[in-house]
């Protein structure tokens, strides 16, 4: 075989806009960290950010920093630092790479943004265990290291039907955070501000949902790999006008692509679902690989996880409790399977790809027989690839690609 030209990833023009608002966000945090005002809260990515914003905090998300360490392929420099202080290589590699980077006093932020020398240190940290226990351990480490309070919400796990009791408990936990957060910020809680921020988060999330749903059309205008980058504002800027405005711009561009019948993958032949975490250090490589295979990865649990349909400014606490509890990762196997089944139907998928992320059991849904059950039920093939979100030592490039290529060959022969 002669050396083939690398397939081109189509440029999304809104990327420039996103870079600008992300830069503004990090510079604002950096300024606040240097000046001591406004106060900074660290928050887990599906934590009660809207409450924090309404109390005047700037909100920083360590998971976003973890993803940056993965995407810049720096994680392997830092994970061993954290292993050495007693945190296993088998636990969340966001945690181990982020703490390792802190121990080495390094951050990709200083490489990306001139003048930023370090991460913005917190005045308070607020977690929600809806994703996993690791976020609590992660914040607990910083809490001791920096002598900063870590407050939290403990969410029920493996929930089928969400009951009023679940929501009442979570809403109460959210309310219980308020006195400490008022004390640290020096601001009084204002229900109208909270409603306003929640409304902005709702608008952001609905636009993000529309962005993702442009992929119902064939060919799909945006790939999963691009989505993981463009979901940045939905994660770190939800609850702001900037995020809402950004998704209007991105949505318009994608709708224009749809109108031109332009897909992210030229000559799209197959459509796949990505279940599990992205492999951050291999986004571009995998995007090009799938383009070459004329296969579009067009829907995912991961990107859908920042759709919060339940937000309701009219009932802010209970609706926030519902929004942050009804997410996929919190739910039981029956819910998860029916959710993926719906995705297959909505997006007209030909196959399901499960990423078994070595250090993220909560986001690796292949481990209890789900692919086999779905194959049987839906009559479409599944593939599991082994890898990790950040720790590329757990990813075998050749094996993963051979598996993917063989999977596409299997689809071709159907």
């Amino acid at each position, binding site marked *: 075989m002669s050396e083939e030209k690398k397939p081109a990833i189509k440029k999304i023009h809104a990327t420039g806009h996103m870079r600008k608002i992300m830069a503004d966000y990090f510079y604002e945090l950096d300024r606040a960290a240097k000046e001591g005002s406004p106060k900074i809260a660290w928050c887990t990515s599906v934590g009660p950010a809207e409450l924090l914003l309404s109390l005047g905090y700037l909100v920083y998300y360590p998971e976003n920093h973890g993803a940056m360490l993965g995407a810049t392929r720096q994680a392997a420099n830092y994970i061993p630092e954290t292993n050495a202080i007693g945190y296993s290589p088998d636990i969340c590699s966001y945690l181990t790479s982020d703490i390792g980077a802190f121990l080495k006093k390094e951050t990709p932020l200083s490489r990306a943004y001139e003048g930023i020398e370090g991460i913005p240190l917190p005045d308070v940290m607020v977690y929600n265990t809806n994703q996993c226990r690791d976020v609590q351990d992660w914040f607990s480490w910083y809490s001791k290291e920096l002598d900063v309070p870590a407050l939290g919400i403990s969410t029920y796990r493996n929930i089928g039907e969400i009951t009023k009791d679940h929501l009442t408990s979570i809403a109460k936990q959210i309310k219980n955070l308020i006195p400490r957060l008022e004390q640290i910020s020096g601001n009084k809680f204002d229900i109208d501000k909270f409603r306003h921020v929640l409304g902005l988060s709702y608008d952001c999330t609905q636009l993000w949902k529309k962005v993702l749903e442009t992929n119902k059309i064939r060919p799909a205008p945006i790939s999963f790999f691009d989505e993981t980058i463009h979901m940045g504002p939905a994660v770190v800027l939800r609850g702001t006008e900037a995020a809402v405005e950004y998704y209007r711009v991105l949505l318009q561009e994608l709708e224009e692509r749809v109108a031109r019948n332009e897909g992210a993958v030229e000559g799209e032949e197959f459509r796949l679902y990505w279940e599990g975490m992205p492999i951050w250090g291999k986004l571009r490589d995998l995007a090009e690989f799938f383009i070459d295979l004329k296969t579009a990865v067009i829907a995912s649990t991961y990107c859908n996880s920042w759709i919060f349909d339940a937000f309701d400014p009219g009932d802010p606490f209970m609706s926030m409790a519902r929004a942050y509890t009804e997410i996929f990762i919190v739910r039981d196997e029956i819910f998860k399977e029916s959710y993926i089944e719906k995705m297959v139907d909505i997006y007209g998928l030909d196959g399901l790809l499960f990423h078994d992320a070595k250090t993220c059991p909560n986001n690796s849904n292949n481990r209890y027989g789900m692919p086999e059950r779905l194959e049987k039920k839906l009559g479409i*093939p599944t593939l599991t690839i082994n890898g990790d979100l950040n720790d590329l030592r757990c990813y075998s490039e050749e094996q993963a690609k051979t*598996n993917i290529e063989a999977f596409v060959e*299997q689809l071709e022969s159907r």
Partner: protein
Amino acid sequence: MEYFVGIDVGASTTKSIVIDCGRELIGHSVIHSGADFEEAADKSFRIAFKDLGKDEPCDKWIFSTGYGRRNVPFAHSTKTEISCHAKGSYHYFPRAHTLIDIGGQDSKIVKIDDSGRRTGFKMNRKCAAGTGAFLEEIANRLKIGIDKLDGLAQKATKNVPIGSYCTVFTATEILTKIRQNVRVEDIIKGIFDSVIKRALEMAPLEGSIVMSGGVAAHNPYFVRMFEQKLGKEIFVPPLPQLTGALGAALFALETKGGKHA
């Protein structure tokens, strides 16, 4: 004259096969891959063609497969080893079956329906346990030629379970057993048993079973042990190590639209 060539560049060995438009086997070769896959592919290809015994100009259609499939610059196209093994296996056993291939670097289980289509597959995880590389490493540790393993295992008188997954830990476990005066023959049988267990835990082995790959090619006793474990016959193609190469050659033939394609 037209010939169809499959070259399977594996992590351990490179295999080439030449067939004609009637799917008749014309030549084949198996050599060590070494570090230079391109050179190995070229050498293996030339050896396979030597079997033709004639130098007349001919058209050749070449497909490559295996770990180094992209390192064959003279191939017209590539296919994964999973597709090629399925193709090669179905050529000899044209019925629904489950193929177990234990190669140098990976092992795979491929489900094939009665029309020859693949319906699913599993490969080993990122680990050498349960592959030919595992046997090579253990043979090396025991200072035994890889070709002697099968004969030794046949002479075993006891079942010695090997408990470790990991190749490195297995080597340590073996050293412990040697210190305990366990016979090498019994240890080798235990090692074979360990490879079988790794294959069994990959996927249910249903229906008719075919086994290909270098481990099956060089270790008939291993296949017998596997049969005993399954309680049924395992079918092995005539050149088990060349099953993937044959599949690649058949893909070349189909693509070119040769006779019977």
